[in-house]
């Protein structure tokens, strides 16, 4: 897997824990949603626990523990499945400030969509990272400099720029 942050391929300091693996005493680990409660109980809420969730999870299943999480990864079963974008919005709406990660076959062409909806990082399989290398992800960050929507994260809302220009 390759991890993209701020348009660069970076080293992942989180480790995805398989369900059959024993819970380590320390270190940043990502567990499945099913294992989340027990992991939090065992390790406490020190921000070293993250969770990977399906894009169909109801947000209220997460809200009771969300403040304790250091990372939430949303699985993208296919790049064409946009449910993860809406779920990211709902997660950010709870006030969650930890890392939000899109995990799956997301394309560089969707990078600004992901960032706009509140994701920090994108995690893609190696074969995809070979075709869509760091250069492509880096320049993908700059493909949507102007955006019409407000309330999403972007480098330049057109309405705000219009206002500024009119002043």
């Amino acid at each position: 897997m390759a991890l993209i942050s701020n348009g660069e391929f970076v080293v992942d300091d989180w480790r995805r824990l398989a369900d059959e693996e024993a819970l380590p005493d320390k270190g940043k680990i990502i567990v499945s949603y099913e294992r989340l409660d027990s992991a939090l109980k065992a390790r406490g809420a020190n921000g070293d626990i993250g969770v990977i969730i399906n894009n169909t999870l109801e947000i209220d299943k997460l809200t009771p523990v969300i403040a304790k999480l250091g990372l939430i990864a949303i699985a993208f079963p296919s790049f064409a499945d946009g449910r993860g974008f809406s779920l990211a919005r709902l997660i950010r709406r709870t006030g969650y400030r930890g890392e939000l990660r899109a995990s799956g076959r997301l394309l560089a062409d969707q990078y600004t969509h992901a960032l706009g909806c509140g994701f920090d990082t994108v995690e893609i399989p190696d074969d995809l990272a070979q075709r869509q290398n760091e250069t492509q992800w880096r320049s993908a960050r700059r493909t949507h400099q102007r955006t019409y929507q407000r309330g999403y994260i972007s480098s330049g809302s057109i309405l705000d720029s219009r206002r500024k220009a009119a002043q």
Partner: protein
Amino acid sequence: MSINNFNTLSRINSPRTTYQYDEFDKDFVRERVAEFREQVRRRLDGSLTEEEFRPFRLMNGLYLQLHAYMLRVAIPYGTLTSQQMRRLAEIADRWDKGYGHFTTRQNLQYNWPKLIDTPDILEALAEVDMHAIQTSGNCIRNVTADHFAGVAADEIEDPRPTAEFLRQWSSAHPEFSFLPRKFKIAVTGATHDRAATLAHDIGLRLVKNASGDVGYSVIIGGGLGRSPFIGKVIREYVPRAELLAYLEAIMRVYNRYGRRDNKYKARIKILVHEKGIETIRAAVEKEFAAMDYTAFQQDPQEFKRVAASFAPPPYETLPSESSKLAKARLETPAFDHFVSVNVSKHKIAGYAIVTVSLKPISGIPGDATSHQMRVLADACDRFGFGELRVSHEQNIILPHVKKDDLFALWQTLDAADLATANAGLVSDIISCPGLDYCSLATARSIPIAQAISQRFSDMARQRRIGKLGIKISGCINACGHHHIGAIGVLGLEKKGQESYQITLGGDPGFSASIGEILGPGVSADQVPEVIEHLVDFYLAERHESEAFIDTWRRLGHARFKDVLRREGEDGADI
């Protein structure tokens, strides 16, 4: 490569007729063109697989059709300037085969562009503030509106500022660009629905509340395709300031819960049908209440800025009747027919709305040559403040022509084969491209439209029949809107043969209804005859000027079925 060197200067002192891009809008479209150029390059160098490239190609209006690529250009709310129309003609000449096809969603399709040329075509469009963004794909599509917007006598408010607002809000949306399926929005501001708002994923009607404020009645879950549904009102009144927020709430509910397991069940109409409108309404209201929607407040200042683009042109003060027009009508019967059929009432005295039919007898519905496009551009510069409209009936409208000028305009149109006096008549047929172009089609539709048109080529007979909408689709996806045609024709394939199913009683207006199937399918060559029998029966049974749909509603479907049964007894295979 730009085509700046082409002569496309707009008329000096031409008034604003549609939304004028500012530098930010221009930047946005240029960015999209640059992005697509890069995507084409990355497709060719293998960075993107065909499967990965596909949604981005579609979001830029580029389809892979039966014989070639097809590029669908957006004409938001169907409004075009003369300058834009000339550019469409230039593109047709330079990169296509000298013609274009106007569609039922107020767009224009080129049927023969090359993939490698498309970024240049998009750049040529961007130079005149046009694009092909989101004319396809599983995203919010080009927003359509009443083609008589701003000039209709029955209007509460021009729907185009709202439609332009929605165009901007929906363009390259970070959250809603990978929806379960395509999503179509139509807006009307009139008391007659010329935008088929009940047949869209979202239909918006401008309404006034008790205190006289203009807001929106929001309809969701309408749609045609293989499972047609009439839309349902989700909220009677949404204040203008809250419209975008309310739409975000609907989109979020759809994006999260719309089916993705079966593309034929993925439209919002199926979600509404399966869960029930009450459940969906509750989910939308819950989301709406939870949103912090200050960011989505429709800013009154910004709305005013957009609305100013659609300000009325500088009309002259004229008498409501024109003696020049009356005289010309008396002297030239063909012109007289044109006026009674193709000219509609304008809200300003002394002006008229002219519908230019793209349905010549035996022609291809919606096609226009580059020459015809230029004639239309010149004609509207001369007679209509440089403005044109595309209707979802696949015709072109000159929205403001002086009654005094109608005869001169008619002569100009007639010389370019654009004066067919059949707007709304039986030969003004809506048709999808069908098997002649489309890879989804199961049967031909254009030749059927041509044959019906030929059968009714006697114009006096057409006028006697009066307004009657025939709509033809070449497959179950219903791009020809056959479900809402008073007479609908659906082309299917049965055991390797084309078979056409006839439906009656469809209605696209506020009293919308889905047509009912008449009986077993008929062969291609029988379609005109069957329709002729139905029309003859209607003529014999109608009360005075009763419309076809009203006669059908009064007599009932069974009586019309009987017409065909009697035909069957004579040995015809119906």
